[in-house]
């Protein structure tokens, strides 16, 4: 048996620090929102000439006076991703850009993907993304409250909150792009982390009924250990699937799978080191769960 409870204090401090740092990062550095949430134009193009590189593309785009531009390589040798923060939407159309580009660099380009999101739509998407995350947290809180007790509900939500905040904090730290699929990833993280917490909680509840003399401090440790092999195996299989998406699933899914990989790791950690210490702090005992059965 591993004494997870020996490290409750230490990891609580670490978690608190992580959350504070993440919030500070989100507050001061902010998130790197993609065109979905910020508006603007995204072009994924493939050059039919090997001479084309990021620098020549950037120069060419800068000459078109489109405002703030970001050019980067995207997957293959000749694939590039261009983001244009277009303030004035009517300024120039994709067709004009395409023509200017091939004239300037005397090469032909295949525009493989074009996304153009107006400011109104992007703010709506952002709003609905935030609502979706908050709503799902609330729905889970409610579900756990019904299935368990409020103490469990609080522990689970704090664990979820931790996972979401720290994942976003890492996205902020490395300036990774936040787009629609990241919102999907965050919601899946919420589901996964909850899944993990619930399995351990389920065991805690079972053990609480079984052993009245064991203190919650010990009891959580027993429960974590009993479910440990499951926790590890499921995390491993999920990570195997996610890593294969990250490595082979193409550029578009990279951000999504990366967020999920981080989320799975944090989710597993938080089920052990946040969800359980909360039960200890709240002095959950046999009475807590038996109360319900008597009513």
């Amino acid at each position, binding site marked *: 048996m591993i004494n997870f409870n020996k490290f409750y204090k230490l990891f609580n401090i670490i978690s608190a620090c992580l959350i504070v740092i993440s919030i500070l990062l989100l507050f001061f550095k902010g998130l790197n929102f993609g065109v979905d949430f910020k508006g603007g134009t995204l072009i994924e193009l493939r050059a039919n000439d090997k001479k084309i590189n990021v620098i020549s593309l950037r120069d060419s785009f800068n000459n078109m006076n489109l405002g703030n531009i970001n050019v980067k390589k995207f997957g293959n040798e000749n694939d590039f991703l261009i983001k244009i923060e277009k303030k004035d939407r009517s300024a120039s159309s994709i067709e004009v850009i395409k023509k200017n580009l091939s004239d300037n660099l005397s090469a032909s380009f295949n525009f493989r993907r074009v996304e153009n999101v107006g400011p109104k739509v992007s703010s709506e998407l952002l709003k609905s993304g935030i609502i979706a995350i908050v709503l799902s947290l609330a729905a889970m809180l409610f579900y756990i409250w019904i299935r368990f007790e409020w103490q469990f509900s609080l522990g689970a939500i704090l664990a979820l909150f931790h996972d979401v905040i720290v994942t976003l904090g890492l996205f902020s730290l490395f300036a990774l792009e936040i787009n629609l699929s990241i*919102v999907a990833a965050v919601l899946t993280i919420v589901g996964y982390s909850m899944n993990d917490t619930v399995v351990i909680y389920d065991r805690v509840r079972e053990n609480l009924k079984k052993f009245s003399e064991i203190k919650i401090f010990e009891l959580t440790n027993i429960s974590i250990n009993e479910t440990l092999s499951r926790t590890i195996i499921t995390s491993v299989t999920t990570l195997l699937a996610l890593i294969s998406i990250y490595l082979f699933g193409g550029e578009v*899914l990279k951000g999504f799978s990366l967020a999920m990989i981080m989320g799975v790791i944090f989710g597993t950690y938080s089920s052990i080191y946040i969800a359980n210490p909360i039960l200890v702090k709240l002095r959950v005992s046999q009475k807590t769960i038996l109360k319900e059965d008597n009513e």
Partner: protein
Amino acid sequence: MLYFSKLRIILVSLVTLFLVFIASSNFFDSENSLISKRINLGLDLQGGSYLLLEIDNGPIEIQKLQYTTTFIRNYLKDKKVIFTDLRIEDKSIFFNTTEKDIKIIESFFIDKESEINPYYNQYKSHQFDLTIIKNEFKLTLSKYGLIDIKTSSQDQAIEIVRRRVDEVGTNEPNILKRGNNRILVELPGLDDPMRIKSLLGKTANLTFRFVTKKSNDTFGVETLQFEDGANEALVSKRIILNGENLLDAQPQMNNQTNETVVSFTLDRVGAKRFGKATRNGIGKQLAIVLDGKIVSAPVIRDAILSGSGQISGNFTFQSATDLALLLRSGALPAPLNIIEERTVGPDLGQDSINAGVFALLIGFLLVIIFMFIKYKIFGLIANVTLLVNLFLLVGILTIFEATLTLPGIAGIILTVGMAVDANVLIFERIKEEFKSEKNNIIAFDTGYIKSRTAILDANVTTLIAAIILFFMGSGPVKGFSVTLAVGIFTTLFSVYFIARMLTSFYVVKNKEKVDLI
């Protein structure tokens, strides 16, 4: 109990075989397979364009106010009440009256049978909200008055958009209402939306009006630019004909001038009016105005009584074809703005499918190898279950003809990773049971029963996330939530029916064996 009735075994097998059969129909040509249902590929996988259009209702609101103002003027004159200073300001209609007429005029507007301020029974509201301050009446479009304007302009606009898209002839376009002032256009397989975008960007409001020199024309005049932007002309506001009178329009080569023109045919009313106007206006210039710009302004040489004519302008064959198309499909009630556009080329879509399928295969392979090493024979059972689960998932998506997107493929891969969780929970529980229970059958049975609540709770929470994602998410993300949600149900089915059945067969056969798992 590890006992399964014959009926149950047969039912489970039938359902499974049926779904596997349906799922496999996706991999064969539709002509050879019995089932025509197929998973639709999202625009991000098959390539295509997604356009979100917003109707600019501002001009319509103003039109409505102008129309109502005229109506009020005539109505009040008719009723012989005193009113002064009737005007439109800040999107409201104002007028003043005298003390004694306030009550009478108020009743004209708040009566449920009111002719000038229609009452909507279903909303319990009038078209206009009325406020009276001293002697001044103020009429503002009510919330429902605005909704009424929006929905009716949306209804008209979607019809015109549909006609224009159909005329261009893309395959299986998807045109839907969004909210009450937006239209979503999905064009699968279209990798260059430029032409459609420019067609949808035009209101195509066509009018025929005389060019005039006097600025005191009874109907009012306005200065309009020519399309080339170089010249302008003073044009009467009196409309002789508009696009609604057009029966047909086609691009044509004019043999004499070798110019491309758009020839048009008018309906009976239009032909009559056109004939009369051209007979009286010989020698005058007739301006053909499209969306506020003069296309051309030919001089009338003869009365045109045939009800057909030609529009010339500096057309290429393409622009003449487009103009004819716009005229045939009719004018939009209000301008449309493209507020969101996503286009994916077909080769990128194919690349995404290839990458997604490859990632799925690798992920699946890694998981089944891991499970086999960890649980041996039971790992094998879990793996068979997982494979069946995949087919079930694809089968159900096929039945519903769901749309598979790239995030949707990610959802399937994620299901592969997470689907083994239920089996792992059960197997681990059984292992624990073996510590206190020596009877194989009882240990397995208890393991299944005791792990049930955890599995249920765990899956319900994921399902909650998927459902919220479905209702809040848009486009590709929706596809992800669908596969995730369906994946949860197929997982539970395959774990509790298929895996459990296979396990029970094995355990019952080996009930004396030690260290079974």
